[in-house]
C-alpha cells in the first residue's frame, strides 16, 4: 500500500488520514512500534517536519502514543481504534449514500448495487 499524496490539500492532513487507515486496517498492529519519523518520512517521500506534524495530530486523538525518546507506538486500546473505525466507516457510508442518491437511484437499487459490489470484493480477496 503506497502513500498516495496530492499537493492540493495539506500534506500533513493526508498523512494523518493514511496512517489512521493503516492503524484501523491493522497494517500497524495495536501496540506496534512505529518506524522513526525520519524513516516514515523517507518512505512517504515527504518532509520529516510534515510527518512529525501528522504524528502529533494522531497523538492528540489518541491513536498513537509517544514513549519519550524511544519513539512512538500504536495505541493498544481497541476502544479507540474501533471508535476511529466507526467514524470513518460512517463517513464512507454517508458519502456512498449521498452519491448514489444523487444518481437518482431508488433505495432498493442502491442496496442491490452495494451487495453486488460486496460479493465481488470478497471474491477478489479469496
Amino acid at each position, binding site marked *: 500500500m503506497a502513500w498516495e*499524496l*496530492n*499537493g*492540493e*490539500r*495539506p*500534506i*500533513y*492532513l493526508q498523512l494523518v488520514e493514511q496512517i489512521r487507515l493503516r492503524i484501523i486496517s491493522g497494517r500497524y498492529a495495536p501496540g506496534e512500534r512505529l518506524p*522513526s*519519523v*525520519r524513516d516514515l*518520512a*523517507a518512505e512517504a*517521500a*515527504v*518532509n*520529516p*517536519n*510534515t510527518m*512529525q*506534524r501528522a504524528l*502529533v*495530530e494522531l*497523538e*492528540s486523538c489518541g491513536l498513537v502514543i*509517544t514513549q*519519550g*525518546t524511544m*519513539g*512512538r507506538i500504536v495505541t493498544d486500546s481497541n476502544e479507540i481504534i474501533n471508535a476511529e473505525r466507526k467514524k470513518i466507516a460512517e463517513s464512507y457510508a454517508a458519502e456512498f449514500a449521498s452519491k448514489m442518491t444523487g444518481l437518482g437511484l431508488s433505495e432498493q437499487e442502491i442496496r442491490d448495487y452495494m451487495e453486488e459490489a460486496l460479493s465481488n470484493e470478497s471474491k477478489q480477496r479469496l
Partner: protein
Amino acid sequence: MNQNSGFDSHEIKAGELEPAVHAGRSTDESREESGSQSVVPLLECRRLTMRYAGNRDALSDIYLKIYGGRIIGLLGPNGSGKTTFIKLVCGLLRPTSGEVLINGHEPGVKSKLAVSYLPDRIYLNDWMRVHQLVSFFEDFYDNFDAEKAYSMISRLGINAGDKLKNMSKGTKEKVQLILTMSRNASLYLLDEPIGGVDPAARDFILSTILTNYNPGATVILSTHIISDVERILDDVIFLSNGKIMLAGAADDIRAKNGCSIDDLFREVFKC
C-alpha cells in the same frame, strides 16, 4: 516539549506550527516570535537589493528571516531573482544595498564553511577523477563526510576512478549533488537541482535531500518546476521580479487556498 528522534521541536507545539520563514518588514503573521526564536536566524536579509547596470533591480528590498531545520522552496519564474538571491547568500555577489547575514555574519570565509552550494551548471574541473574531487572537498571543508560521499557514489554505480569529462551530463550532475550533500553544512542552497533531469534522477535527488535532513540545517531549493517537489517542502517563498510575493508554510498555504502550491503558482504567475 516534544522530544522526538533527532528533532529540536521547540518550534512545534501540539497542533501548531510556528513559521520558520518570516518575510516582510513587520511580522504580520498571527503567530508571534516566541522566546525560543530569539536565537540568531540562520539566514537574515534586511533591505537586500541588487541592481545590475541598467537600473534593473534583480532583487529589491528583501526582508527575510530563516531558521534551521526546514526545507524551503524558492519559487519563481525565470528571471525572478532566485539565482541572484542565492549568489548573494553565497558571497558570489555583493549587494547594491542592504545586507545578508548568515548566522549573523556577512558572507565571508566563515559563512562559506557553513553554506553548501549547488549551482545550476557543471562547475567542477573536467579533468579530475571522482576520487580526486572527493579529496578536494575533504581538503578544503573540514565538515565534509567522505564516507557518505563514497557510499552514495557506489550506490549509484559510479566508478570513483572515472574522469568527470567522460561522464554523461546527468551523472556529472549527480556527482555534484553528492559532493554538495556530503557536507555537514548549516545551509544548503540548491539552484534548480531538478531542471531537465529524468524522473529517476529527480527521485534520487529528492530522496537524497530528505535522507540528509538534519534538524540543525536548512535546505533552500530554487525551482520553477513545482509539482514534483512540493510535497517535501516545509515552507515556500514566491519570488517575482525581485520581490517576495508570498512566504509561509506550505501546508498552511494549501489549507488557505484549497489547492496545491503548483496550482497557486500557476495562478499567481500566469501571463
